[in-house]
């Protein structure tokens, strides 16, 4: 990296103004020119500026930093121990603070992904904002990761359209770069997931196949399993059930080979949903129950399976089992008030009020809170389900005007969903 943007980055990190850094060394207008690569300063000036920023210019140390960075970047892409990643991050952070390194910008860009992996979304956003100021000085390789990780942030935030724009910008950079095959496969896989979230089924199949071709050659079982799950979801959506089941079974097989419980149970959840859409409720319940009964599975996945079971049992009028699952869901959510699980809280409470026939509470929850929440999050699929449920409820109590209103909402949302 050129020294000008490097000085600028360090100055911003240390919250110094140009005047503060330039004082007694150069004019702040000249510093501005150095930072923006509009002039080449003498080595003496650079040295003085670096000293004020507390940075050493040490080439040997930089080679060590470069190696450590490469190792750490790799850890951000593979299944790795989070503690190990954190430890290496701290070490690099200390080295970067005191030494001028060519790898600094790449390191700062990778910090976006690091924060996202740790679930620190706000830190990731801060990092994006601080890097935005120097993004005009990025070369093609920097830009590739900059767009990709900004897309990762949008994906984590549920903004899939924006994420797709970023991934496409990253993809455009591919022909200018000589990247490793697994890097390309990782981007294709990420694009496949995003297409799936946006319900662009054929595009998702295309990108998942492309990623799978590379991951297969590299015997990357987990990534292959993730691609097969995506293909399973996509083929179910276009009703190619046999192909969908085949892909899910392949994913499960790879999950078993790698002894990866998350992959196995993710497959079970999706197989459960596949059988549910086919109308094979018994099989759906079987797969969902496997997920719910596995204590090693994370809370989010267990809640998805529990709410799926509530819906299945409710739809076949199995009141006792519905109640049992509602209780289980409430147990899992006990004491939690976070935004992350709000959807599940709404689902569980909606069915709880419906089954207890607490009409006023049911109507108030669905109309005043749940439906506005789904609209806000553009969750059209769930909006169809709960607008329809409300329509049925009003039909049952002979409030036909309200009934038509919510059937109509369900209908219009359904159109929105299939047009997505």
């Amino acid at each position, binding site marked *: 990296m050129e020294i000008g943007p490097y000085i600028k980055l360090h100055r911003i990190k240390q919250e110094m103004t140009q005047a503060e850094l330039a004082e007694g060394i150069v004019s702040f207008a000249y510093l501005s020119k150095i930072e923006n690569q509009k002039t080449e300063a003498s080595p003496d000036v650079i040295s003085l500026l670096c000293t004020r920023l507390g940075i050493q210019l040490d080439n040997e140390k930089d080679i060590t930093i470069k190696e450590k960075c490469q190792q750490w970047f790799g850890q951000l892409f593979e*299944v790795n121990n989070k503690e190990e990643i954190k430890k290496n991050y701290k070490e690099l952070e200390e080295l970067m603070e005191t030494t001028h390194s060519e790898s600094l910008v790449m390191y700062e860009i990778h910090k976006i992904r690091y924060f996202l992996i740790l679930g620190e979304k706000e830190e990731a956003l801060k990092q994006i904002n601080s890097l935005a100021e120097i993004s005009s000085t990025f070369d093609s390789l920097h830009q590739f990761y900059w767009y990709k990780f900004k897309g990762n942030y949008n994906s984590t935030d549920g903004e899939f359209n924006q994420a797709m724009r970023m991934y496409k910008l990253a993809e455009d950079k591919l022909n200018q770069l000589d990247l490793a095959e697994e890097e390309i496969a990782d981007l294709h896989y990420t694009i496949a997931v*995003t297409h799936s979230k946006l319900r662009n089924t054929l595009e998702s199949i295309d990108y998942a196949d492309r990623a799978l071709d590379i991951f297969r050659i590299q015997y990357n079982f987990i990534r292959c399993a993730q691609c097969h799950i995506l293909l399973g979801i996509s083929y179910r*959506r276009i009703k190619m059930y046999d192909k969908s089941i085949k892909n899910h079974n392949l994913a499960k097989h790879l999950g078993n080979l790698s002894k990866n419980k998350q992959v196995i149970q993710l497959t079970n959840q999706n197989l459960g949903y596949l059988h549910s859409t086919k109308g094979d409720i018994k099989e759906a319940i079987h797969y969902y129950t496997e997920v719910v009964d596995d204590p090693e599975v994370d809370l*989010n996945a267990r809640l998805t399976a529990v709410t799926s079971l509530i819906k299945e049992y409710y739809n076949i009028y199995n009141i006792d089992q519905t109640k049992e699952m509602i209780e289980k869901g409430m147990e899992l959510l006990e004491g939690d008030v976070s935004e992350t699980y709000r959807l599940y809280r709404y689902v569980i409470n909606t069915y709880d009020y419906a089954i207890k026939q607490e009409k006023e509470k049911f109507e108030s929850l669905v109309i005043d809170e749940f439906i506005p929440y789904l609209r806000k999050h553009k969750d059209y699929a769930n909006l*169809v389900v709960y607008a*329809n449920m409300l329509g049925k409820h009003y039909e049952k109590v002979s409030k036909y005007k309200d009934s038509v209103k919510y059937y109509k909402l369900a*209908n219009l949302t359904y159109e929105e969903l299939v047009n997505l």
Partner: protein
Amino acid sequence: MKKLIASVALGTLLVAGFLFSQDNQPADTAMDLEPSIFSIGNTGSFF
């Protein structure tokens, strides 16, 4: 009166159309779960 009959008929058509489409093409109730964009370890999350 004509307007009322027309609106009732339209409403019925909408409901019938929706129910028909539901029977023949089940809505995606968002219960399928995509894997994470990040690698997933045994202790990691799905998402």
